[in-house]
């Protein structure tokens, strides 16, 4: 029995906006980072699903997903580095402390 494509899309969409929601509401930067991962992966799922269901003759979507995952990893590493640096200075990772510059 075949799972309809729409189901995947719903999941991915939910994932994406869950990510958005998380990103906007979490106080902790690491949590925000995780939300970002959710969003990126939601997009990846879309690619895979479209490739699998609509355009099975080529693997463009799959490859794209692979690269996207790689980039996501790099981005996470960088984000962690910066967060650590921040932690060194202010001893916590609360995002609301990043408001020295405003207006």
């Amino acid at each position: 029995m075949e799972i309809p494509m729409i189901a995947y899309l719903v999941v991915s969409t939910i994932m994406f906006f869950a990510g958005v929601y998380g990103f906007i509401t979490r106080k902790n930067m690491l949590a925000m980072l995780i939300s970002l991962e959710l969003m990126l992966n939601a997009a990846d799922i879309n690619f895979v699903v479209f490739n699998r269901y609509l355009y099975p003759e080529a693997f463009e979507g799959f490859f794209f997903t692979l690269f996207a995952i790689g980039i996501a990893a790099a981005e996470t590493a960088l984000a962690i580095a910066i967060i650590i640096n921040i932690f060194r200075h202010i001893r916590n990772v609360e995002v609301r402390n990043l408001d020295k510059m405003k207006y």
Partner: protein
Amino acid sequence: MEYSVIILLLPLCMFLFLGLAGHKLSERVAGILGTIGLTVTTVVAYMVAFNYFTMPRNAEGVFDTLQPINLEWLRFTEHLHIDLGILLDPISVMMLVVITTVSLMVHIYSLGYMHGEKGFQRYYAFLSLFSFSMLGLVVATNIFQMYIFWELVGVSSYLLIGFYYTKPAAVSASKKAFIVTRFADLGFLIGILILSFFTETFDFQTLMSNPSSLVTETAGMTFMGCSVAAWAMALIFMGGAGKSAMFPLHIWLPDAMEGPTPVSALIHAATMVVAGVYLVARLFPMYCAVPEVLELITWVGAITALYAAVVACVQTDIKRVLAFSTISQIAFMMVALGVAFNTDLHAGLGYMASMFHLFTHAMFKALLFLGAGCIIHAVHSNEMSEMGNLRKYMPVTHITFLIACLAIAGIPPFSGFFSKDEILTAAFEKSAFWGVWMTAVAGLTAFYMFRLYYRIFWWSKPSYEHHTPHEAPMSMYLPLVFLALVTCVAGFIPFGEFVSVNGEAYHIHLDWSVATTSIIVALLGIALATWMYFSENTRPKALADKFRALHTAAYHRFYMDELYMWVTHKIIFQRICRPIAWFDRHVVDGTMNMLATVTNGVSYGIRKLQSGYIQWYVWVFIMGALLIAVLAMCF
């Protein structure tokens, strides 16, 4: 007669020379130079007059109108262009003679009168400027040239009235004179615009060749109930009324007496103030085409004459008295023009009369002013109360002054009698009403002139203890004597032979009925003056108390100046200028500033958008993206 251009050029050069190099010359040199210059001008003017009037008359028995020179100065359209030139016809030649004569007298007189004054050279420069502009005015070949010199005489009169520029009174008087006349000139200008637009020319001869052209061109066109032609001519007359100090534009003339007395004699008695009369005379045929305007002129003149005469009766400053008498006399000329209802020789008698009176009046009024100058020179005051019994001290002045008074009062055989008689005749021919009116005014004239005469030369003997008055130097009384002689003989000039409404020779004959009445009235006036002022007494005071209201009103010139003050300051300054200035600063400019303020305010208001929190940024980000998506889908 191309050489007539010298009449204009010489004074001009004299002005430029004295104006630019004057301060380098000594007083005497400057004065002599100016006088010599004007003497030459006068001689040339006389030559022109002689040659002109000895010319054979042409077929219609008229002196040809000559245009020795006429250069295009500025071209507006193919029809309209301002020319500068010289137009010689009977009245302009007559004016040349008058102006040069009086001006020369004044030049000579001033050598003595202005001696030692600061800015003597400047004074002579201005005199030359005035002579130049006045001469240019009378020989104008077209109405725009006339307007140009019209403005120039206005300015030179401004400069001369304000000659004592450290005296606030003089400054404000000069300002007043200029602005009032300027206001009148506005009418003149608009009149010219209308006239020239419809007739497509400025040129006098073209205009005269077909006087009714304006009426025909504007046939049927009306503006606010009056025909456009009437408007044009009336507006032009407004210019003339301003210069000739007709009621209600007369207010500048009495104040103009702040200027040096010779200047008053030249500008504000003999020459400039008659420019208005000259203007009307110059355009007389066109005025005949619009009788309603002539009616207007008559009324204005008559009212002015009466008004000025009444006021003159109670003034105590001798120059003011003379000023008002001038206004009144010019009004006589205006009336004379007004009552001449068409250009045929007999009906147009008033034209000749007014020109004649202009001529004689110029002489004796100049004489009066110069005499007054001598007196002021001697007494160092303008007030009657400071004077009296001066005949002992200054006999020459006394005699000449008396002659002038008799002339202006209209006692034969002095010149004034003849010219005034012609005017009265003309008035009677128009209607008995005007005749009676003017005769009455003539009587008043006699009265106030002799009041003046007695108060100065008889009355009581005030104590001149600090210094005794003495006869003026020769440079000052020679002109008096000369003018007195002219006044005596001028009446016998066959004036009508030279000047008449349509140029044909007109033989003056006295209308004895009119003459006798006028003489009697004049004598009555003199008698009354003698009764009241011959020797010190309380009758004048008693009389003044009797008619207190009238007296005070007349003394304050019926509050005309106050009225003007009120209009200009309270209405124009307070109610128009200031609000506009305020509006400009606070509304127009305020709007511009407000734009800036609002921008700043907005930029302050929205600064919170930049809250500094990543999550807010991202919130805006995603919302923006979604909003765009949604909107894009909607459209």
